[in-house]
């Protein structure tokens, strides 16, 4: 599904070059729910932005469904973002002037697939994520959790190969965060979605099948979930502490 090979990315500030990603390699299989964790500055969001094609990378390869996205031109990238990727942002990125349902339909509208099926898909997603009752409301009229579930539904409307989520629970209280994670799980199980999530939240990450720990721009560790979520969360916390040099 997704293969990241030896990825390098640095930022230039004045004459100074700051390497952020230093040879990242990993892959994600279809239907997997994977998250990336790591301390601030470890390169999590940069990694996500490179996979999203929001920013170019210096070196390496990102293969999505076997295609090297660095070779795509602007039109191809637009098509990729619209058809093969779904996005969930920390601050929701919903358009205030559109209703929940219209926001969900937006990727379809942008691709010109404005048929009856579009509305049916939107209704179905609203049902799946329990937001049918607010589908005619505007973002300003709904809660943070509802906004993020709307964003998840929007990310899924075009049946993307991969959903990319950047700190989706970062702006939410724990209850709303939980509902959003449940939405991802629902998407994974009901819609067979593949999800790649950047998070700081070990609780949210503990629901994933796999967690990639980043440190200083390199993959520090891969952790795979067992059967027990709480155990996995504990394992995650221990690994993070160990990574921070505070191991017991």
């Amino acid at each position: 599904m997704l293969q990241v090979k030896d990825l390098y990315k640095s930022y230039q500030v004045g004459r100074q070059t700051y390497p952020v990603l230093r040879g990242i390699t990993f892959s994600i299989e279809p239907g997997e729910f994977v998250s990336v964790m790591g301390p601030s500055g470890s390169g999590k969001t940069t990694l996500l932005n490179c996979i999203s094609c929001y920013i170019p990378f210096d070196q390496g390869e990102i293969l999505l469904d076997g295609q090297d996205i660095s070779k795509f031109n602007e039109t191809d990238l637009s098509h990729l973002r619209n058809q093969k990727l779904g996005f969930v942002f920390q601050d929701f990125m919903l358009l205030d002037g559109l209703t929940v349902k219209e926001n969900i339909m937006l990727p379809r509208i942008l691709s010109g697939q404005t048929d009856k099926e579009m509305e049916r898909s939107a209704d179905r997603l609203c049902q799946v994520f329990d937001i049918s009752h607010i589908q005619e409301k505007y973002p300003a009229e709904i809660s943070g959790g509802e906004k993020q579930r709307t964003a998840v539904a929007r990310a899924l409307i075009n049946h993307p190969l991969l959903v990319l989520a950047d700190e989706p629970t970062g702006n939410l209280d724990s209850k709303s965060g939980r509902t959003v994670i449940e939405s991802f799980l629902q998407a994974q199980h009901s819609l067979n979605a593949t999800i790649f999530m950047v998070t700081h939240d070990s609780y949210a990450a503990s629901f994933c099948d796999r967690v990639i720990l980043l440190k200083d721009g390199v993959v520090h560790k891969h952790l795979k979930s067992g059967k027990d979520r709480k155990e996995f969360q504990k394992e995650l916390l221990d690994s993070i502490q160990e990574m921070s040099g505070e191991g017991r």
Partner: protein
Amino acid sequence: MSVTLRHIYRKMRRQNRSQYLLMFLCYFVSILLITAYGVVMESPTIRNVLPEGGDSRKMLYMIFALTLLGCLIFINYASGLFLRFKSREFGIFMALGAEKKQLQRLLSEDLLLLTACSAFGGLLLGVPLAAGIWNFFRFAIINTKEMVFSISWSGLLYGLFFAVISITAVFLKGVFFIGRTNILDVIKEQRKSEPVKDVKFWYGWGGILMILLGGFLGYYHSAFFIQVLKYWPPVWANVVYAFVPVGLYLFLLYTVIRGWSGKNSYKNIVSRSIMKFQGRQTVRNMCIIALLTAGGLFAMFYAPITQCTRLYSIGQRTFEYAFFYRGDEEMVTQKDIEKLAEKHQVPIHSYTEISSATVARDGYRDLYSDSGAISEEYVEQLSECQIVSASDYKKLTGKTLDPAPGEFCFLDSPESSESTISITQLTNPVTGKVLPVKAAKVLPEYSILLSHLVLNDSDYKEISRGLTPQWQEEVVCFHGDKDSENAYLFSRELFDQILAHSSKDCEISDFYDRIAKAYYESEGMTYEDYLKISYEDADSMGFANSWKYYPDFSPMDVRDSLKNLSVFLMTFLFIFLICLMSVLVILYTRSITLGLSCRQVYEDLKRLGASRAYLRKSVSRQLFSVFVSPTLTGAIGIWGYFLLVLYANSGSISSAEWIGAGVCFLLVLTLAVILFFFYRRVRNKVYRMLNI
């Protein structure tokens, strides 16, 4: 009906109509004001009165350039604001896979709709606005023959040109906006601030010094070039004025970011930090407000200073009634005048008649080379010069002047800067007799003998011997009632009779000079009588201001003084209104931007427990700073500059000028009151927008 991109975008437009309306208003008002200004500037009503190359015409152009610049910067700001607002929407569209051409189409529609409507409206309403304002004041204040507003459609071209430039500029911005590839930058654009990072301690005083320096050098650089370097000032020399905007920017930056109080910087931390994070745009707007305030007021100062000086000098005249005529004219007699006075029941007394003469004076004529170098050429008979004998001067004024043989006293205007006059010889234009002279002193004079040379009796007799009547004048003066209606009617009828007795030979302006004409013709050059007047326009402002033999009748002069300024007054009043409207629109937009862009900040502050009083104070502090700092700087600055001009004109400021400057200051206070009420209205609107 299926939902399409066009459908939802139209809906988003409706939802965000306040942003669209703001952009539309900014464009519409800018194009409207520029069109109206252009129409007035090109109107034959104004062009016929404001002399080509004259100071008033230059001022008209200068303030137009300033308004144009201000409107350009303002619409640049407005379009920037609009695109920043759009960046989030477009960033989300891009992130969700919208293609550039889709976004291009949407943005083009937006911009086309906004700019075409605003341009159409502005161009369409510019002419009625100009004519409406003009005619409103024409009927409300002064209605004279010259005030009939005639429209030159070429004025519309200014508006059209401005509209084309501004529309092109916004489309270029749009192309750049769409061309960006970094989606994250586009999305974050709306939240991006333009903080001013480093405001040095010297910016405040340094700015003030630069403003003063710019004003001083701007005023004196021409004189320096002409008098010291003997060179016509090149256009680039005007660059010294650049000190003013640069100084203004530094000064306002310091005022906004650091402030002058220097105590308890935490007290106003919210308002100051918001101002700081919108620093560049805020200060740029404030600079424009300051310059437009200054330009508008400078135009408006013209009428009070001219009117005060004129009324003051009328009040200082030795005689309430005085006129002069050429020796070869069959003029009204003392008997005619007394009869007319009797008819109007105006008692007159102290009827006095004296003679004066016109001879040629020597002097230097400036020669301008193509390279701009100025050289001087001595000319023995340069121009006309009126002379009077010391005994006749005494007869008329009661003052004794006794210049030594070969010397003269020059009777100069109290507002003039001449401390000496460089005449070394007088020539009788008929006999060619030459009298070497030198200046004894320059005296201020309010009587009809203004600009005359007083010679001792024997010198006068010697130089005027042999002059034919057309080189001689008779001066008639008498006292009489000046305040009654009858006095006005008497003076009007006497003026009509003087006109009726004046021949075609005397249908000339103040500028017509027989000696200069003869000199030009002797050198094979053409003498241009560029200010032609006609007896048919005897009631006109132009005639009153220019006829060589226009009488000094105080009742008529006082009553008609405003009328004789009408077109000037109206033109400058119009300029003031345009500048004021521009200032109000910029202030309004800037203030509303605060309401639109800082909602979240004030919501967060509310959540942090900030009281309503604190929040309101924080808003009012910002708005007050935006309103007061630039307008006060502009108003005080231009008032100071105006005093400098008055001082530089004569080396001192006369009583009349001080009175005029006082009236100008009252105008500044009036503007302050208008702005205060406007500030309160806008402030309350922003309170409502922020729900505080």
